[in-house]
């Protein structure tokens, strides 16, 4: 039984890592908490579900279409709405994305209703040493991990990735070196939305998705980000798997109705005891 809980925890934790990595990137580079992140996840999931169930695309292609659409959406939102106030105090940017999220979420509820939708894929399941694993869920996990890995490689080795990292370290110095900061901000925001969409597509295989869940996804992103340390891809991976395992065992020990409390209590404890995260090295602010 323990092995099954561990497997479930790692599986869902990989999806959480993908969920949080985009949030963490935007947070780290733009110094903005993107309250819309949860709604991006839901919107990405809906696009994937629509292209799979209604138009008959293969799930992987549908997920990539969802990613591309959300990248464009994120890019435009940052370029034309958020960039105006990107350097304003925390309260302003936070409240602005909160307002945008209310708008987006309300629009989604009107357009799609609050009915939960799933991506139903049946590829059978594997039995490994008494642990039961659904193939579709494994596929979702692989997709999430591959995308997270690709993002990590791009940030480290591509010119664009180095520019993003440079802006994160010091945007004034980056601007002096000729890096177009507003464009990097918009691309970063687009990548964040893209990762959210991928997480959404993968989540839809595991959970029924509804616009009502966007707050939950946002909360999880933040907890993971704090657990793993701000703005780091390996940190998000560690934080995501830690939260996945914690929830898997926490649900057994306390009951799943306490999952928010457990996650947030852990987050506040980490903030106070290890403000740089379990693996991170950056201080707060």
């Amino acid at each position, binding site marked *: 039984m323990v092995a099954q809980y561990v497997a479930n925890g790692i599986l869902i934790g990989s999806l959480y890592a993908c969920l949080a990595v985009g949030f963490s990137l935007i*947070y780290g580079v733009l110094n903005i908490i993107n309250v819309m992140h949860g709604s991006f996840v839901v919107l990405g999931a809906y696009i994937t579900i629509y292209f799979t169930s209604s138009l008959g695309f293969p799930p992987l292609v549908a997920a990539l279409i969802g990613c591309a659409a959300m990248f464009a959406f994120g890019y435009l939102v940052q370029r034309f709405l958020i960039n105006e106030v990107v350097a304003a105090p*925390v309260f*302003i940017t936070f409240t*602005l994305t909160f*307002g945008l999220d209310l708008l987006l979420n*309300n629009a989604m509820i009107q357009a799609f209703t609050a009915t939960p939708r799933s991506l139903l894929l049946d590829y059978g399941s594997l039995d490994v040493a008494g642990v039961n694993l659904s193939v579709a869920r494994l596929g979702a996990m692989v997709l999430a991990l591959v995308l997270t890995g690709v993002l990590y490689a791009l940030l480290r080795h591509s010119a664009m990735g180095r520019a993003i990292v440079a802006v994160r370290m010091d945007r004034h110095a980056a601007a002096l070196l000729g890096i177009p900061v507003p464009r990097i901000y918009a691309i970063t925001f687009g990548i964040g939305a893209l990762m959210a969409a991928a997480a959404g597509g993968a989540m839809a295989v595991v959970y029924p998705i509804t616009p009502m869940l966007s707050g939950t996804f946002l909360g999880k992103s933040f907890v993971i980000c704090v657990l793993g340390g701000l703005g780091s891809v390996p940190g998000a991976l560690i934080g995501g798997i830690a939260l996945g395992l914690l929830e898997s065992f926490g649900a057994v020990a306390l009951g799943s109705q306490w999952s928010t*409390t457990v996650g947030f209590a852990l987050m506040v404890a980490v903030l106070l005891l290890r403000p740089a995260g379990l693996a991170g090295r950056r201080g707060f602010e």
Partner: protein
Amino acid sequence: MTGAPPATVRGALAALVPIAAVVAFGFVANNYLLQAGTTLAMSVVLCLAWNIVGGYMGYPSFATAALFGLGAYVGAITQNLDAPLALAWLAAAVGGAGFAGPLGSILLRLRGHYFAIGTIAVVEVMREIANNWDGLTGGAVGLNVPIVAGSPRAVGIFFYLAMWTLALIALVVTVVIANSRFGFGLRCIRQNENAASMVGIDVFRLKVGAFVVSGVITALAGAVYASMVAFIEPKDAFNILTSIEVPVMVMLGAAGTVLGPLVGACLYVLLKELVWVNFINFHSAILGIIIIAVIYAVPKGVLRQLHPARWPRLLLPRLRVRGS
């Protein structure tokens, strides 16, 4: 003794006129206006309370719903123990202080985004506790509160006056803070916390003090609200939208001023009653649009941006607005 009366007499008269107008309105208004007036008073109370932490001290707090819900539940539970109304409200105030003190000493170690998210986490956790602790809170089903005896009209006027009395208390507290060393210290913290600490301000004590004062007022508003509506439930008492609406109202007026919260709440409630009620399905979308409009059009508040030279200094301390 001829000529103009002394400044204090004029000040007292200037204060009495709006008070008399508010009281008189309560007795002549119809039921709809009485209801709207009470809602406005509650918004004013919450805005003034938030303004101490969010405006003067500059900490982006979203804990309003947590303290409001706490006050509502403490008041309701005390009333259900057959305690008189006044005792229930007192219990809520004490509960608010007893909760805000320890909570503030934990959360106020955080800054910026982390503080903001920490306060939101508190709201979410408290709602979950209220949902799951059936024995104490009645769980997700909600909690009935004994109804105040009297004709509906008389009860309506009673709560209207109670809420406005609380608003007056909050206003007086704000004026006192704005003109005290305490308030000066809070403004120093807003401008540069490290520097404030360096020149010998006991930053931590001031921050927790402000959080407690704000928390007590917010909890009191919650308790009065619970007695008034006679039924509370977790998703209503610990509603995260309360936590976002209140700062937006203050920002609309002008954060960190005495009259800003008052003006912001009036404009917001007016807007809500005139436009909003007609679009029930788009409630949160319209709130979203208002937030975006406020941030782009009046980020420093209407009091600061509309003819700032005309406002007296007491109402509008000349401070640099962060991020301007």
